[in-house]
């Protein structure tokens, strides 16, 4: 049986990262982009949730999901770009 090479495109990795970020409570919206081995995730957070804690939870969630689904070990940096007021 021949070997199999799996390549996950950067765009797909970014989509997986953004989806993982959106699953974190407090995250209202998310986008992700790749820069070498760094995954930059930009999120909006609802006002009232702790930005530091939400950002860390996104880091953990995205890191875990990328390792599990895409076999990628990446450094994740989260930017809270907006706080959603109500």
């Amino acid at each position, binding site marked *: 049986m021949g070997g199999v090479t799996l390549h996950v495109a950067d765009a797909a990795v970014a989509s997986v990262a953004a989806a993982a970020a959106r699953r974190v409570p407090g995250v*209202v919206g998310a986008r992700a*982009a790749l820069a070498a081995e760094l995954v930059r995730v930009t999120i909006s957070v609802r*006002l009232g*949730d702790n930005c530091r804690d939400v950002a860390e939870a996104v*880091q953990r969630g995205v890191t875990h999901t990328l390792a599990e689904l895409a076999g990628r070990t990446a450094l994740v940096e989260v*930017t809270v770009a*907006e706080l*959603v*007021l*109500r």
Partner: protein
Amino acid sequence: MGEIAPLACGRDAAVVWDRAEAGLPLDAHGRDCPHCSAAYAEARQLDVAVHRMAEEPVQMPAQAVEAVLGRVLETARSRIRPEEALRLDSPLGPNRLARAAAATALRALVDAMDGMRARSCRIAQPGPDTAIDVALTVVARLGLDLAYATAQVRRTVFAAGEQALGLPVRRVDIEVVDLWEA
């Protein structure tokens, strides 16, 4: 934390606020004192409001969600420059919070207070740690007890920095730049 003006009865307002925040009842003096009772009631209202905000589900029209996502995407594309962001601690590596977003949030909290409106909010993060210094300019309703109201603003900013932003607040400067007649 900066100095807070004592209540008219001479008691430290922060002591009354701390009791309210901890859910402790007023002591014998506080129960009979109108100044302590009023400060206690306001602190309880503020505490309830902060917790309610954290627990309320966000219900936004689809258009608003799209607008937010659009701005997030725009930010992701344009990239926030380092000087436009505040550092957030994380054991997995530092994260960032847009300075403008943090300022907007603090302004909104001040605007929600009776008789006060924020006009500007500058946030600095001067040290190697994540502590921030906040400088606010506000306008107030004529007749408001300015010493008491600004102490409330200061307290709200200290609480919001830690609870909503995740950033310890080292200093809060407030300048009342105008008054308006109700």
